[in-house]
């Protein structure tokens, strides 16, 4: 794409060679602003509505770059083009000779009169040349640095905004990627539902088993208990009757027999100490 960010406002006539003051950068500014300064009564915006500049189609040719250095000059005053112009006729020394001749002519003919002003002019110009020669470069560098700072700031802003836009694009892309994973949410829910249902079913099966087993076990334990109770009751009943059936006479005889037997045992083992 061409360097012009839009239709070039100021160089509409450059291609056609219209406005002469385009050679000076910002010259068109003065062309545009001039009406504002000449007529202070009308506000800045109003006049531009009335005066019609740039009625031709704006040319889209790339604008020439702002020149970095001015044209080369000799003696700080006379552009080198003049020397080039005289070179074919008079050689290298021609312009200098011309200059010297003109100065001497003006002095001798008193076209230029030497007054007190001359000396003040000489000292002023001498001082100026001295200052410019000595400090010109450094002042230029200082000014360049200021302008560079401004440009660096703008660059930063540009880079920051580019970075911002890039980040926004990346965020959008990552969010798009996340959209792909949304289904996991619903998978989890469905899994949960399925597992819960399965769990309920299994619990029901287990419960059925437990209940049936409980009932059967209950019957068995009831039976066991009944049998035990019957046994105990029978034993008690038998014992009671046996004890009842032992008459007093039999009891006496049995006790006498037991005592005789004990005596026999005592005789058999007399040396056993009683502990």
């Amino acid at each position, binding site marked *: 794409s061409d*360097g012009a*960010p*839009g239709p070039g*406002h*100021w160089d509409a006539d450059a291609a056609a060679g219209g406005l002469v003051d385009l050679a000076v950068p*910002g010259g068109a500014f003065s062309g545009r602003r001039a009406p504002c300064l000449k007529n202070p009564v009308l506000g*800045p*915006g109003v006049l531009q509505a009335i005066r019609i500049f740039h009625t031709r189609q704006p040319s889209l040719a790339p604008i020439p770059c*702002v020149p970095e250095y001015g044209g080369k000059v000799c003696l700080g005053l006379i552009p080198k083009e003049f020397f080039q112009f005289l070179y074919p006729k008079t050689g290298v020394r021609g312009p200098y000779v011309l200059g010297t001749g003109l100065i001497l002519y003006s002095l001798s003919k008193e076209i230029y009169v030497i007054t007190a002003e001359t000396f003040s002019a000489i000292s002023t110009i001498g001082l100026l040349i001295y200052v410019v020669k000595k400090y010109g470069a450094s002042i230029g560098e200082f000014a360049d640095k200021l*302008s560079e700072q401004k*440009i660096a700031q*703008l660059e930063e*802003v*540009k880079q920051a*905004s*580019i970075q911002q*836009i*890039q980040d*926004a*694009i990346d965020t*959008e*892309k990552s*969010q*798009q990627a*996340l*959209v792909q*994973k*949304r*289904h*996991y*949410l*619903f998978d*989890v*829910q*469905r*899994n*949960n*539902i*399925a*597992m*819960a*249902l*399965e*769990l*309920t*079913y*299994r*619990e029901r*099966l*287990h419960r*059925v*088993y*437990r209940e*049936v*087993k409980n*009932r*059967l076990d209950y*019957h*068995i334990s009831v*039976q066991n208990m009944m049998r035990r109770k019957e046994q105990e009751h029978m034993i008690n009943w038998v014992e009671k009757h046996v004890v009842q059936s032992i008459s007093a006479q039999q009891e006496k005889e049995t006790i006498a027999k037991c005592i005789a037997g004990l005596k026999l045992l005592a005789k058999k083992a007399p040396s056993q100490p009683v502990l």
Partner: protein
Amino acid sequence: LQLPSDLKVAGQKLALKTIDWVAFGEIIPRNQKTIANSLKSWNEMLTSRLATLPEKPPAINWAYYKANVAKAGLVDDFEKKFNALKVPVPEDKYTVQVDAEEKEDVKSCAEFLSLSKARIEEYEKELEKMKNIIPFDQMTIEDLNEVFPETKLDKKYPYWPHKPIENL
């Protein structure tokens, strides 16, 4: 904690999808994290309970009971009824809701996707514009105003300082 995709369980096929918990954590917005965590803990609890509970209950030893229970016919009766019993499978009303929700979500996601694409296109256009501006040292103030419209000076104060003196 991931389950294999199919468990043949108690007569029905349990079709569980494998879940990537990392992705699950990513898609949850910040204000719903607690709900998501509860969902996850439900899932874990259910899987652990499912793992501990065996598939089928152990078989009842009918021969032992037949031999020991005195009441005749009780055990036979129980056995017959037990074998005839069909435990009802709990019916699933909720998967339908989840599916409906998912459909809605897919729709809204598609909408979001298209909006997001439109936004990306705008951003890319701006990016192109930013990348193609002329180098700053060849710009004029008007070029600057075109690229960064916020630098445009207010028409009310065209002369320096571009604000009323009170605001200096």
